[in-house]
């Protein structure tokens, strides 16, 4: 089997996505949720760059990757702001107790 670096990178994407989703499924702490989201987004960035290499359109995917990184940083910032404020007002960071918006 001829495993090239591209395959390794794609395996890495799958692995990180798996870790990220498992974390989202099992964590109850709001800050940990944001951390897992960050892991997922890093996997996505790696995937984008790898796709850019495969198709030869590296510059377009680099631009997209920059946009994605900016977006996910903003998400982290807002998420942290939420965590701080919720901790102050509600007193807990447990996502199970934060469901006042019940269906």
């Amino acid at each position, binding site marked *: 089997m001829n495993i090239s670096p591209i395959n390794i990178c794609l395996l890495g994407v799958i692995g990180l996505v798996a870790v990220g989703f498992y974390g989202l499924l099992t*964590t109850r702490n709001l800050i940990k*949720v944001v951390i897992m989201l960050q892991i997922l987004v890093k996997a996505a960035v790696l995937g984008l760059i790898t796709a850019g290499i495969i198709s030869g359109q590296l510059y377009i995917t680099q631009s997209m990757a920059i946009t994605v990184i900016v977006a996910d940083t903003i998400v982290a910032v807002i998420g942290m702001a939420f965590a701080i404020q919720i901790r102050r007002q509600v007193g807990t960071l447990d996502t199970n107790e934060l469901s006042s918006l*019940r269906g």
Partner: protein
Amino acid sequence: MAAFLVLLTIGLPWIGALLVLLTGNERPKLQHAIASIISVAAGISAIVLLWFTSDQPVLSIPMGSVFGVFTFVPDVLGVLLAVIANVVGSLAVIFSIDYMKGNEQLGRYYALVMFFIGAMAGLGISGSLLLMFLFWEITAFCSYALISFHNDDPKAVAAGIKALIITQLGGIGLLVGALIINSFIGSYQISVFMAEAESLPFNVLVLLAFCFLAAAIAKSAQVPLHTWLPDAMEAPTPVSALIHAATMVNAGVYLVARFFPAFEDVPGWTTSVLVVGMLSALLGALMALVAADLKRALAYSTISQLGYMFFAVGVGAIFASQFHLLSHAIFKALLFLCAGAVIPAVGTRDMRQMGGLRKTMPFVFTVFIIGSLALVGLPVANGFFSKEFILEEGFIYGPIWAYIGMLLGVGLTALYVSRMVFMVFYGESHGDEPIHDGLFWMRVSLTALAIGVFTTWLLAGVLSDLMAQTLPFHGVHAIGTFELAKEIILAPATWISIAVIALGIGIWILREPLAGIKNLMRPVARIIENRLGFEQLNQGIINVTKNLTAALHLTQTGQLNWNILGIVGMLSVLLALLFIGV
């Protein structure tokens, strides 16, 4: 030019809705003004669109390969619907200036009414089945929101939900039909479907025909899905006039009329339409006869008259059905708006507590009589020409038992209309004195509609001409107005029905001597008052839907982990499907 007019007809009311919401409830005069001016402008643009009808799409918005192309085809079937929606809509809005005076939620009211008007116009003009379904759903939503407008009244809310569930179940029929058509023919365009309808496999065509019929029955409140319409009278009266008499309930008639050439060869379809029409005409008339609430009586009358239109489509007289649609919209809106003038003036909806209003509300009495003339079908009013035309076509092209049923309906119509007029306007007053005889803006709308009752039949020639030009599949042949009038007046069917009408009115006037027969009919009346068991059927449908939604509610936990589980679960299902597909 036509594209611009189409955009105006649909878009102006929507822009008006937005503007009314933005001006806020602190400036009610401005809201009234905006709503009236914009709806009148939209009405004018719809009328001008009549000069630009064609059977080719004038506006096409490609929406990608999934949704097809959203086209707008202003053929006369659709433009008629748009004109009725906009013109009657503008008159209802003008009426609301006085009816809704002092209400604190004007913004919501006007916005919903204008949103509805635009969507109704769009329903008629759209040439793509998916776009038509979109507008259909918008009208259903606006109807629900307006029925439960007084949302602190539990009866109104229950009525709104009932109307929503029943009409939406019909809407499923329309969606399923649209999807089937797309999967077999490859396009959502109505014109393409009509041209290639014969190429569909036979059982698919049958399924399609009955799906569309179900959607039409639910929307037009025909038997057996009719119980939502009388309950929907909890809405403010201008809303009842607009939505539940003149426009939304016509959408079902429009649907069967438009797709008639495609489905007329399906065995049993035209007969079903005919039977549904006849049953609704008779049932509606019977229930109007025993109704005590003025608006409910008018609602049952609407069901009955829509039955006439369905009957006309069933025998193949498309032009007759559309002509009666036009007449009915005008005179029924007139009658409802009169009710809207009477009910706040005397403070009750119960006809048994009215009476003698002929002397105290002369203006409203006059226009109500004009509307009743049209409803009964006496000469000079537009209802005469359209109803007699339907009966004549039914006599020539339909089975004789259906014709006799419809004739019976005509007599019953005369009977219940006489009863209504008498209970409200004649006799001694059983209740309070009315506080006004129709305020200024109410009188404006009522006068306009009354004039319409006497004049719209003159448009018959123009209408049939346009139909012959712009409906390539329907095979309507043009006929001039006076030719039509002559034909109607001279037809034997007309004389028979006038005799039946006279019989009906006579029975009412002579009801004291005929009291013996009335006592015989009393048990029958009690069965009719219990709505013949249809109420249980419809309530059963509502209860099943509500229980289903309550059960599904359990899956919305609001917990993050479960939601992520849903996402990951879906992902694995998709991957598994792809894997199996490979």
